[in-house]
C-alpha cells in the first residue's frame, strides 16, 4: 500500500504538465477558468491539439491511435488537464461509441469511423433516452424495421446532449418485440443529415441550451450501420456504460472547484471579517473537503482494479453517486457564498456588472466572475444525479449486484 506516485508516474506527470504549459491555448483555459460557455470551435481546437500529440483517445488500443498508458497514467493526465483548466474531452465519440466499435464493430466500421472521430470530421451524440424511457431504458419504442437492405427508423429520442453540434447519432432502437424488452434492441449508427430527422433544442431551467429532442420519421439507414448482431444492442450499451467510467467521479474537477470556492470564501467580506470565518459555512466546506479527499482514494482504488485487469462493476455506481453528490454540494455552497449576488441570471450577466461588483472583493475579478455564475451552475448541475443512470437506479444496481438483494 502506497498512495504516493512512483518515479515513473512523477516523470509522466511532469511530461503532461510541460505539454499543457506549452500547448493549451490561453483563450481556452481562460474560458474554462471563468466558467464561460465553450463553443464547438473551442472543443474542436482542443481535440485537434491533443490528437496531434496522440493523446486524444488515450484509452484506445495503440493500433487505432490510442496510447499504452496505464489507468494511473490516464488518471494523472485527466487530473493535470483539470488543474490547468483545459476543456473537457467530449466523450460521445471518443469514450462512448469508439470502445463499442472497437469491441463489436466490423473491420470496415473501424476503418471508417475511428479516424473520423480522431480528426474531428464526425461529432457524435447519444440517442438512448426517449420521452417514455428514462431510468427504464429498455422500454424504448423507437422502431427500426428492415426493408430491402435498409432500416426504416421511426420514433423520438430526447436529452441528446450537444446534439446541435453533431452530424452522427448512435441509437438504441427496437428491432423486435418478442421476449423480454432487453432482447429486442439493436445498436444503430445514423447520419443526422438523413432525410426525416429533425432536432429541436430544449431550454433548461437555468436558461441554457445543451440538450435536444431528435425526431425520426421514416429515416432510411443502411443495414451496414448496425453494430454487431441485431437484437444484441442492449449488451453493447451495457458495455458502453461500464467502460471507461473511471473518471465518472470527476475528482479533479471537484478539487479545482473546491479550491476556487475556498479562495472565494477567504475574500468575500462580511463587515470586518470574511466568509471563511463564519463557522457554519467553514464547517460545510471542511466536510466537503474531507469527503472529497476520501473519494480521491476510492477513485484510485478503482483505477488500481482496472490496472490489474478487472472491470469495475458496482464500484462505478458508488463513484457515480458520491462524485455527483460532492459536485452538487460544491455548487450549492458556491451559490451560498455569493450571498445576495447569487441570483444573477446567466443571460443578464455582463462584464461591466462584474467589474463594478468585483471592487468589493479584493479586486479579484476572475473569482467574482466565476462566482456570479454560481446559481446558474447550481441549477444546471441538478442534472448530475439524474443522468447516466439516476443515483436511485445506481443504488438498486448495488443492492442487487453487491448485496444480492
Amino acid at each position: 500500500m502506497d498512495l504516493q506516485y512512483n518515479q515513473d508516474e512523477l516523470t509522466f506527470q511532469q511530461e503532461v504538465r510541460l505539454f499543457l504549459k506549452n500547448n493549451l491555448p490561453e483563450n481556452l483555459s481562460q474560458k474554462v477558468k471563468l466558467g464561460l460557455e465553450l463553443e464547438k470551435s473551442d472543443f474542436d481546437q482542443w481535440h485537434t491539439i491533443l490528437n496531434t500529440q496522440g493523446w486524444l483517445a488515450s484509452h484506445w488500443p495503440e493500433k487505432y491511435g490510442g496510447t499504452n498508458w496505464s489507468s494511473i497514467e490516464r488518471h494523472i493526465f485527466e487530473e493535470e488537464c483539470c488543474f490547468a483548466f483545459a476543456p473537457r474531452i467530449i466523450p460521445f465519440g471518443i469514450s462512448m461509441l469508439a470502445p463499442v466499435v472497437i469491441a463489436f464493430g466490423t473491420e470496415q466500421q473501424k476503418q471508417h469511423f475511428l479516424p473520423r472521430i480522431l480528426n474531428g470530421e464526425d461529432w457524435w451524440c447519444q440517442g438512448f433516452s426517449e420521452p417514455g424511457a428514462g431510468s427504464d431504458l429498455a422500454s424504448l419504442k423507437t422502431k427500426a424495421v428492415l426493408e430491402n437492405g435498409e432500416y426504416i427508423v421511426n420514433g423520438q429520442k430526447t436529452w441528446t446532449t450537444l446534439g446541435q453540434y453533431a452530424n452522427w447519432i448512435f441509437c438504441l432502437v427496437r428491432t423486435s418485440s418478442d421476449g423480454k424488452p432487453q432482447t429486442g434492441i439493436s445498436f444503430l449508427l445514423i447520419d443526422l443529415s438523413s432525410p426525416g430527422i429533425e432536432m429541436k433544442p430544449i431550454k433548461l431551467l437555468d436558461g441554457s441550451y445543451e440538450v435536444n429532442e431528435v425526431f425520426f420519421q421514416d429515416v432510411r439507414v443502411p443495414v451496414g450501420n448496425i453494430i454487431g448482431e441485431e437484437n444484441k444492442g442492449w449488451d453493447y450499451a451495457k458495455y458502453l456504460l461500464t467502460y471507461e467510467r473511471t473518471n465518472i467521479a470527476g475528482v479533479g474537477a471537484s478539487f479545482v472547484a473546491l479550491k476556487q470556492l475556498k479562495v472565494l470564501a477567504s475574500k468575500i467580506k462580511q463587515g470586518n471579517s470574511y466568509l471563511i470565518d463564519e463557522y457554519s459555512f467553514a464547517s460545510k466546506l471542511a466536510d466537503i473537503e474531507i469527503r472529497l479527499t476520501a473519494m480521491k482514494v476510492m477513485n484510485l482504488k478503482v483505477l488500481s482494479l482496472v490496472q490489474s485487469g478487472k472491470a469495475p462493476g458496482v464500484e462505478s455506481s458508488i463513484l457515480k453517486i458520491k462524485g455527483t453528490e460532492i459536485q452538487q454540494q460544491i455548487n450549492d455552497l458556491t451559490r451560498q457564498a455569493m450571498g445576495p449576488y447569487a441570483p444573477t441570471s446567466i443571460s443578464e450577466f455582463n462584464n461591466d456588472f462584474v467589474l463594478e461588483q468585483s471592487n468589493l472583493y479584493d479586486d479579484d475579478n476572475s473569482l467574482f466572475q466565476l462566482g456570479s455564475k454560481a446559481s446558474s451552475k447550481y441549477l444546471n448541475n441538478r442534472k448530475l444525479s439524474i443522468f447516466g443512470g439516476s443515483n436511485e437506479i445506481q443504488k438498486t444496481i448495488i443492492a442487487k449486484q453487491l448485496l444480492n438483494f
Partner: protein
Amino acid sequence: MEFNYSDEHRMLGETLNRFFAEKYTSQLRESIENSAQGYNLDVWNELCELGMLGALLTEQQGGFGGMGEDINILFQELGKVAANEPLLSAGILGLRLAAELKQESLVDEIMQGDKQITLAHFEPESRYEIDVIKSQATPTEKGFRINGKKSMVYGAENCDQFFISAKIGDSKKIAIFLIKKIVKGLTLSTRKLNDGKIVSDVLMSNIEVSSSSLILDDAFDILQKLFSLACLALSAEALGAMKSSKNLTVEYMKERKQFSRPLSAFQVIQHRCVEMVIEIEQLDASLIQAANDISFAIHSNQNDDWKQAFISTASAKYLSGVTGKLISEESVQLHGGIGMTWEYPLGHFVKRIIMNNHQFGDSDYHLKQHIKMLKAELV
C-alpha cells in the same frame, strides 16, 4: 502507487481475523462483562504470544510494524469482533509511548507481557484538548511533588505504572513523568463502561517522586504524534465494527420476512443498506489515506509531513464519527426490536462504534481541527 497490501500486512490481517473469529464467542463476551479486568486474560496473553504487540512498534523500536497500515489493519480486526483487549490503552498509549520516549528496558518488560502501562493525560477540564493540563509538578529537594486529577484513564487498574502529564512550576510545557500505581497520595476511582471495559479517574494528591521520574520536560510533539496514532486506531476499530454491523444487517434483511416477503425485497430497505455500504467505503478510503500519511511522516520525520498526517487523521476521525452514527442508528432501526436486545450481537458493535467517538476527539472536535488547518492554508 500501490493499492495492494504487502504479504506481511495481509498475513497480519488474516492471522488476527482467524484468531478472533475462533475466540470471540458469546460466552467469552459474557465472561468479559463479568470480569474485573474488562477483557479476557487468556485472549490477551495469546495475542501477546502471537507477537501482536510487535505490530505496534517500528523495527527501530524493536517491533515489526508500527506504521499506519499496521494500526489500520490490526484495529479493524479488533473492531470486527468488538474485542475488549487493551491494544490501545496498554499498546499504543503504553508500549508505543515508552518506545517513543526511548525507555528501552520498559519496552522489553512490556513486550514480554510481564507488565502493563498506560498514559494518564486528559483531565476533567481538557475535554479533548491536548494542551489543557492543570496537573502541577512542584520541584522539591529530591524530585517533584505532583498534584492533579486525570480522568477516564482506560484500563488504569490493570497497570503497574503510568505515564502522567503535568506542568512543572510556571512552565507552560507539558512534561511526562513515569510513576508507580501504588504510591502514597495516588487513588484510583474505577468504574465499568457500557461495553465491559474498565476506566479510572486518577487523583494525585501530593505525590512525592524522585527526579528520575521526569522522563521528558516538553512532550507536546510526542503526544500530538501519539494521539494521531490513537485517532487512527479508534477510527479503524470503529470501521471494523461498522463492517460487522452492516453485514449483520444485510443478512438479517434477507432472512426476516414481513408481508410475506423478505425485508430485502423492499426498495426503501435496499437503498438504506446501500447507503451504509457507500459510507463505509468512504470511511475505508479516508483511513487508507490517514494510514498512508502517518507512515510517510514516520519515515521522513519532517514537520510538513506530520502536519499532513494530522490533517488526514483528523479527517478520518471526523468521518468515523459521523459515519459511525449513521451505521449504528440504521443497523438498529433496520433490525427492529431484535437489534435492541442484549443477546443479539449487534449491540456490541453499536456500542463500540458510538463510544469510540468519545475518545480523543469526537466528530465536532475534529471538524474544528480541520477548519483551523484549512484556514491556516489560505492565509
